[in-house]
């Protein structure tokens, strides 16, 4: 069919993504080298024994000049060796800690985005064209959702605590195991709260909803849809098919935002995901952990973008010919 151009385009994008990853990791590495004073002292926590310092220096290529040091570090990182955690989980390899945490974080982000997509599309279909009567709701909603996700999370947590308190104060109800927030609990509810905070905050949902609605409306009014209707065919199939591309694009565009807000939100709801680990490791000056996680976060963003490009190319025949 159109296999060859598709394969070529895929390889091209793959190469581009790898280049981006290498370049981004270069910037991250250079940041480390910019530490004030003697780099090795700056990046090892107080009281690190000399052998550990030497090992750290080797891992980060600090015994050489920046450029060769970078390649030394890169050759280890490219195979997933980011060294050992110094303070967060001493002795454990960074990857061993990071990967499970990342899985949790990615699950949270993906589910949050999917929920947002479902709700956004559903509302877009129901609400149709923007109108003055709708603005009574969308206006204030717009204001409230401009709040950063961590503010939403804090307000929500406090509100939740206050609400539960009303029921448990006189002892007639048992409090849930995650009360009062934040308490680490083996429950799904804090994840739900976190997802809600991320969607509601930073205008993520409202913005996405507006975009989806605009796309849907513009599609409904496009000439080819009118032509389909004029010949007596159902427009539904055509609309759904043409919605895939904007849906995928907007989904992929929002993941970096969510990865940003997930960091603080995980901290507020004490979820042990990659964001929480990053913050804790940063607080403990655990450099291998922080650097490793930074690279992994970046790699995730790049991977998602690549995946979105590929899916788009599969769905939209114009993408392939458009090239790079």
């Amino acid at each position, binding site marked *: 069919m159109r296999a060859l151009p598709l394969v070529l385009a895929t390889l091209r994008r793959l190469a581009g993504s790898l280049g981006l990853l290498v370049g981004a990791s270069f910037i991250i590495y250079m940041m480390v080298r910019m530490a004030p004073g003697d780099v090795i002292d700056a990046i090892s926590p107080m009281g690190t024994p000399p052998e550990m310092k030497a090992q750290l220096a080797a891992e980060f290529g600090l015994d050489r000049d920046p450029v060769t040091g970078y390649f030394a570090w890169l050759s280890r990182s490219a195979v997933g060796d980011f060294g050992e955690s110094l303070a967060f989980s001493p002795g454990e390899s960074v990857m061993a800690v990071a990967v499970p945490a990342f899985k949790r974080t990615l699950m949270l982000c993906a589910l949050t985005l999917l929920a947002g997509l479902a709700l956004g599309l559903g509302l877009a279909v129901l609400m149709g064209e923007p109108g*003055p009567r709708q603005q009574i709701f969308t206006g204030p909603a717009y204001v409230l959702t401009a709040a950063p996700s961590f503010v939403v999370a804090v307000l929500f947590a406090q509100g939740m605590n206050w609400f539960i308190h009303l029921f448990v104060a006189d002892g007639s109800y048992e409090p849930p195991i995650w009360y009062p927030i934040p308490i680490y609990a083996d429950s799904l509810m804090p994840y739900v709260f976190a997802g809600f905070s991320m969607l509601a905050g930073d205008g993520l949902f409202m913005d996405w909803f507006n975009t989806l609605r605009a796309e849907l409306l513009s599609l409904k*009014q496009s000439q080819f849809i009118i032509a*389909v209707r*004029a*010949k*007596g*065919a159902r427009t539904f199939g055509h609309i759904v098919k043409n919605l895939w591309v904007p849906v995928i694009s907007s989904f992929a565009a929002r993941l970096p935002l969510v990865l940003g807000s997930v960091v603080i939100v995980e901290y507020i709801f004490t979820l042990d995901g990659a964001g929480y680990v990053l913050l804790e490791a940063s607080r403990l000056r655990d450099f291998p952990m922080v650097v490793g996680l930074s690279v992994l976060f970046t790699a995730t963003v790049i991977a998602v973008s690549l995946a979105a490009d590929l899916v788009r190319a599969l*769905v939209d*025949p114009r993408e392939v010919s458009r090239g790079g």
Partner: protein
Amino acid sequence: MTALLSVRDLIIEFDTAQGRRRVVDGISFHVDEGEVLGILGESGSGKTVSTLAVLGLVEGNPGIMGGQVELNAGETHVSLLEGLEGVIKRPAGKPPRKNTRRWQRMVHRRMRPLWGGLMTAVFQNPRHSLDPLMTIGKQVEESVGLAEPTLDRAQRRARAVEWLDRVLMSDPERVFRSYAHELSGGMCQRAMIAVALARAPRLLVADEPTTGLDTTVRAEIIGLFEDLLADRRRSMLYISHDIQEVLHLSDRVIVMRHGKIVEEATADAIKRGVGERHPYTASLLAAAELGEHG
């Protein structure tokens, strides 16, 4: 013989920044079976909005303020604006948004049995009239499937290729597998015509189908229309600002200017100079002739 489409005293008004403007001022026309009606007018004459609005093909609220529209397709008879006074009459200055949804629902309900069966449409900008994510072949098949639901897959495909061949595609099989963005403007328009006619409508509405195409391609499309309508089994409503095209294809012509019909005559009469011509028509004729030689 009842007309396929009959419009009487149609009034359409738009709300612009300068206030409410009447863009169609009480026009009446009809299209009979087997005839080609040409609507000639320059941009802003109201020719496009009057035809598309009465066929329910305008998104939003087309601003119809009064008139009657009757559509007939065999046993199906629809009086589009009957009983819609509450919806279509709106006080000046008030945004029509509230009425738009009611209007859209009513139009869709009434027009649905007619779309496709009575009429299909061909627009200008052919590349935008085709679904960009679907092969041409599938879109023609979609029309065939609706016109002849008893065909099986293989027969449908064969019929679709037939139609692509009929509209003078040099390589119908290749076009069948192609997408809109891979075809030239002229080929897109031919494909669109195939999609429209494969639906077997009684009336084909063509709104400036040659605008934006190269001159040679334009002539080919006109020739194609002529060829497809030769057997007089279909009617066509041909809207254009090009007097030569209109005169070439139509049986009857109405000339619109500033929302009013200033002339209605047979194309024959106009071409042979029989009878008095409205000064506007005369000026259009003169300009066209100047174009020919100059």
